[in-house]
């Protein structure tokens, strides 16, 4: 029961080809450019934050005077609050989400399941246009008289109400997030439907590449939990615009108080699944890449897919671990702690499967593999440090310190960023028909890897030392002064990481035009997109392929055609005795 799109001609004008395209491959690239742009914006904000923490009171080099003329180039305190708020918002919602879900979700789903496009191409296009509108609203908020939102990426009331955040910045933020939520929900509806009903004939759920599993589970979480955040920001918006008192408390509300903590509940009912919304596509991609580049079938494919599903289900039940310090009843905190700990079990299963996949493989250390291995390393670290925060006793001490910041950057930033780079290096040849330069890719990998670990491990160290997040100048406290050298180290690591992205930008743009022409299947991988020319034709598949084996058929000893892999369109080669 596979539904197939009819073939249709490619659009010819610039407008119809690149702006209002219905083609999932073009929409994927739109999301990729969008994400990379915001990655740059969010990255610059990170550097401004780090500069302030390492060199308080000193002007930011080169562009400082242009950005902050009134303070001689020094980041002012209120701007600092805006920077860390929008750094988080931008990186999560406008960089990582569009790159992994928007770009690679759009690109990979139809190609890897053998479809000609998404189920609903118009909805797909609208999804990008809503995202673009949301991005514009957020960028516009930077130029408001009182600046953009400054209540943290979590926007807790009462800080985010009119009392804590006067002006329009926070209002724009709510609006932007709501519009982006519409965009994500549209995308999720499309992804779920496409994966359920457009798989090529012969492709069962357990014949799908794990990338598709990850994207599918992410889409399901998105469809369920984005509306929860939507409801939260709508009510916050009402509070700000119409004077309702949903999240005001005490004297702030005239009669009958609201409840600021309720926003935290709503935020984290969405927010914890959001962590998995971001990481699941990366897990899927890494699970595939490890097999592809170790030239071995994915170890425990079904167990990996099912444990990813188990994590998805569990992720909906643990959000309370973000709120241990909100006077939650001990009965609840312990329940949430226990549920949180159970997530380690399925996580450990697929983590062990990853190791099983590369164990004694004939590993090819091409750039996608390097980044995939990077994910394994940083995700392991991020996951383990999460245990300290999921445990009530240690969390009470570590809550709101830089240990939290380090931890979630390892899981949400480092893992997902490296996963995004792995995907970019891996599918670039298919997307643009040219190879990226391997040497620059490796330079990029090592600079990123060293910089990133310096930053995020350093953060955990200063956090353990007691440094709180979101302080403009923590060193006004005497006991913090000893942490200045460590903070300087973190900042230099961040600068290194920032510089490390230049080879990527150069490589990406240069290779698009001058890179070596890519063959149909440069990585020698058997999934469906590699049966197509690079780049694929407008409607992908001339004939809809028939799938006959799984996505990871490597190193079959019975193969005798000179290849060590099989395409998914080929019958599994059996030995003579079979």
């Amino acid at each position: 029961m596979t539904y197939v799109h009819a073939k249709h001609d490619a659009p010819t004008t610039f407008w119809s080809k690149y702006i209002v395209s219905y083609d999932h491959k073009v929409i994927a690239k739109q999301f990729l450019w969008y994400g990379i742009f915001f990655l740059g914006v969010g990255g610059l904000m990170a550097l401004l934050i780090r500069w302030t923490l390492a060199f308080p009171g000193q002007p930011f080099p080169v562009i400082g005077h242009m950005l902050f003329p009134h303070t001689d180039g020094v980041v002012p305190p209120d701007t600092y609050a805006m920077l860390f708020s929008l750094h988080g918002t931008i990186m999560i919602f406008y960089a990582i989400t569009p790159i992994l879900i928007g770009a690679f979700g759009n690109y990979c789903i139809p190609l890897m399941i053998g479809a000609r496009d998404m189920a609903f191409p118009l909805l797909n296009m609208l999804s990008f246009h809503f995202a673009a509108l949301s991005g514009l609203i957020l960028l516009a908020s930077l130029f408001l008289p009182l600046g953009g939102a400054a209540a943290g990426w979590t926007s807790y009331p009462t800080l985010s109400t009119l009392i804590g955040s006067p002006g329009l910045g926070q209002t724009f933020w709510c609006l932007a997030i709501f519009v982006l939520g519409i965009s994500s929900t549209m995308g999720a509806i499309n992804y779920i439907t496409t994966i359920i009903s457009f798989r090529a004939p012969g492709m069962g759920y357990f014949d799908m590449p794990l990338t598709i599993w990850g994207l599918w589970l992410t889409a399901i979480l998105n469809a369920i939990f984005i509306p929860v955040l939507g409801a939260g920001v709508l009510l916050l918006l009402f509070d700000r615009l119409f004077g309702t008192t949903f999240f005001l408390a005490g004297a702030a509300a005239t009669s009958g108080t609201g409840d600021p903590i309720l926003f935290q509940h709503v935020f984290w009912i969405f927010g914890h699944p959001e962590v998995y919304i971001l990481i699941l596509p990366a897990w899927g991609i890494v699970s595939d890449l490890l097999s592809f580049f170790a030239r071995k079938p994915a170890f425990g494919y079904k167990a990996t897919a099912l444990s990813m599903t188990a994590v998805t289900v569990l992720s909906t039940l643990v959000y309370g671990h973000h709120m241990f310090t909100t006077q939650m009843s001990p009965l609840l905190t312990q329940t949430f702690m226990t549920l949180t700990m159970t997530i380690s079990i399925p996580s450990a299963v697929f983590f062990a499967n990853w190791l099983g996949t590369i164990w004694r493989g004939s590993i090819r250390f091409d750039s996608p593999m390097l980044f995939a291995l990077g994910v394994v390393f940083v995700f392991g670290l991020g996951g383990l440090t999460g245990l300290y925060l999921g445990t009530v006793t240690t969390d009470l001490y570590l809550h709101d310190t830089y240990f939290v910041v380090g931890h979630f950057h390892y899981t949400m930033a480092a893992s997902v960023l490296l996963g995004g780079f792995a995907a970019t290096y891996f599918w670039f040849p298919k997307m643009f028909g040219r190879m990226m330069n391997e040497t620059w890719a490796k330079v990029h990998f090592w600079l990123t890897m060293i910089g990133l670990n310096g930053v995020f491990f350093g953060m955990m160290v200063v956090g353990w030392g007691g440094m709180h997040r979101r302080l403009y100048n923590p060193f006004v406290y005497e006991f913090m002064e000893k942490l200045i050298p460590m903070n300087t180290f973190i900042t230099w690591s961040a600068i290194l990481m920032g510089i490390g992205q230049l080879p990527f930008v150069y490589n990406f743009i240069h290779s698009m035009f001058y890179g070596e022409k890519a063959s149909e299947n440069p990585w020698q991988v058997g999934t469906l997109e590699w049966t197509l020319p690079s780049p694929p034709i407008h409607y992908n598949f001339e004939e809809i392929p028939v799938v006959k084996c799984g996505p990871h058929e490597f190193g079959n000893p019975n193969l005798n055609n000179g290849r060590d892999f099989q395409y998914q369109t080929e019958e599994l080669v059996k030995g003579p005795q079979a």
Partner: protein
Amino acid sequence: MKAQTQKSHQIALSVALISWGMLFATLFLGYAVYRFQMPQWPTAGVRTAPLQWPIISTILVVLSSVSCHLALVHYRTLRSAPFRVYTWISWCLGLAFFVSQFLFWENLSQVGLYTQSGIYASLLHGMTWIHAAHMALAMIGLTTILFLAYRESSMGSRQTLVSHLTTFWHFLGIIWILMFIVLFIL
């Protein structure tokens, strides 16, 4: 092939309704949290919302769902005259629902339940606003169908659109009835 298109539309609609369901579920969750925290409800010194307009809204919602359903039945059996009549009736009932909502909001202000009058009034306003915004969306859909109803050629060819819009209409009707029970009865 047509059955398969319908199947994928069916999946999409189900997912969309789950998403919308979660949006409203969050609002109900919020309501429950506020309500159970308060020693008395509505909060001290605040009067209860007047019931007459919500009751009328509820009647209109039920009637409009019935007429939407009848319109769909006639659309499926390709009877264009009764389809037009029932679509018109649904449309008018939808409009009447909006009138009853505006009068309800008006009425709230008259009895001193302004948007700024504390959490009870916030919930009355906020939840009905969000529901009404979705009703407005559904009205746009209904207007589209009304246009379709006068294009003889399209009779029966937009089954998916008509039946999904009807489902959405019923969905919003159910949400309204839940809201009516939760906000005004319990």
